[in-house]
């Protein structure tokens, strides 16, 4: 990721992406792809901060107040994480930034052990989330449903 990318501001891809966070765990669902995700630790914190729009550098600075790692190390760990988030279409670049106050984490705690953020993707419910004519229509063709379609 080059310097200019580091300065690109991203946000959570709402309303297609919805999420819920408990303590250190976050579940995100992409309603348009049917893929859902589990994030924990620094990944959950970073994702929640992205709901308020942030660059990688800004995220790293905030995460460094909670985790026992330097801004540069966190930034380096965030770069592949951002690639994953973009690949899953969970975040999108912000064209014109919305004015906001300083980013801060809701959770308490400092000097926590830092583990590089990761993203787990679950695709087992995609066929249930999405209207899928390939699966909905059986070999006999339209309009005969495939066995088990929509179960």
């Amino acid at each position, binding site marked *: 990721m080059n310097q200019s990318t580091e300065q690109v501001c991203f946000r959570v891809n709402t309303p297609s992406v919805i999420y819920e966070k408990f303590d250190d765990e976050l579940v995100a669902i992409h309603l348009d792809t049917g893929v859902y995700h589990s994030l924990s630790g620094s990944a959950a914190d970073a994702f929640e901060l992205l709901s308020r729009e942030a660059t990688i550098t800004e995220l790293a600075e905030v995460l460094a107040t909670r985790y026992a790692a330097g801004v540069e190390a966190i930034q380096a760990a965030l770069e592949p994480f951002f690639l994953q988030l973009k690949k899953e279409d969970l975040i999108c670049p912000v064209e014109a930034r919305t004015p906001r106050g300083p980013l801060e984490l809701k959770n308490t705690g400092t000097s926590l052990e830092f583990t590089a953020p990761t993203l787990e993707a679950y695709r087992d419910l995609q066929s249930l989330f999405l209207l899928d004519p390939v699966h909905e229509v059986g070999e006999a063709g339209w*309009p005969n449903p495939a066995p088990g379609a929509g*179960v």
Partner: protein
Amino acid sequence: MKPIVELFREFAEQAQAEYGLQEKRFSIGGCDVRLRFAGDRWSTLLTKALNHLLHTGTVKPQGRTFTVSILDGSMTPANPLLRFYLKPLTDFWPQYTGPRGELLHLHGGPVQAFYKPGPDHLSIVDVESDLGFFWKRDLTPLPYYEVGSPLRALLHAWLRQQDVQFVHGGAVGTAAGGVLMAGKGGSGKSTSALACLNSGLQYASDDYCLVGRGDDRQWNLYSLYNTAKLVGDSDLAKFTGLASEVWNPERGPDDKITIFLNESFQERLIPQFPLRAVLVPVIRGGDKTWIEPCGRGEALMALGPSSLAQLPASGRKDLDIVGHVVRELPCFRLNLGTDLSQIAPAITNLLGQINP
């Protein structure tokens, strides 16, 4: 009133006059729901899963009434506008629908509309006028999952406006309280719920049920469908007394065994109970079943995505409500052993500890 809703309202009145109005009233999630059929073609099939919630006449409905008219393609709308709308919709539905079946040109605001190919039906709900319409394009048989869990999209879209939320889980309990067993298909929900059928616990659900806050702001669980679904004969063999109750003995190779419990196990069903805990079933090796606390994140992963998956109108609000349920109730992992007789005692023991 929105044009498409008005067109369908006229069509429903016309068809009901022509074929004869049949109406059935249900108490669903504490709300009054009227299903209005034109003739008797669908009135038996589409209500088998709901018959345990039929109004007895002793329950005074509270709040608003949702009126759903059921129609099909053998009935011709008198209004040419609707005829001209339905024909291209059903022939070229991919041009009209979004990724989840939402009809893009109708969807939004108080009106939500979905087309489902395969079973080939259109669902329209107007949450302002409390009207819903279910139109099946042809007279081909409904697949087992549409009979077992009928009118899902319509009921979900309207009930959510009444703060009654669809959740995907099995549920058992007593009038004093019960549990919701969360998880996607194959996680053990159905087996666990059916394993409690002949215990001191009563059965509310094996897949879809409803949650809503009572007057005391505590969560109540409401039964929705009295359907039990099992994957195959080996599952069926685990439960005595069910084999003779199978609704679809002649079924496709991928169809689930479907049983309507209201028909022979009515006294074992419970329409609602105070919800005390969320359980996450996990199938383990060995005989033993045991329950242990689990994290709320694990419970949300089990309950959230699968609850939203088969409901085309689901979104932010659904996940918010599911999040509140998981946040406010204790969450446990239900470790399932192969000895099914241990499941009901384990849940009963847990309820003995957490029921007030």
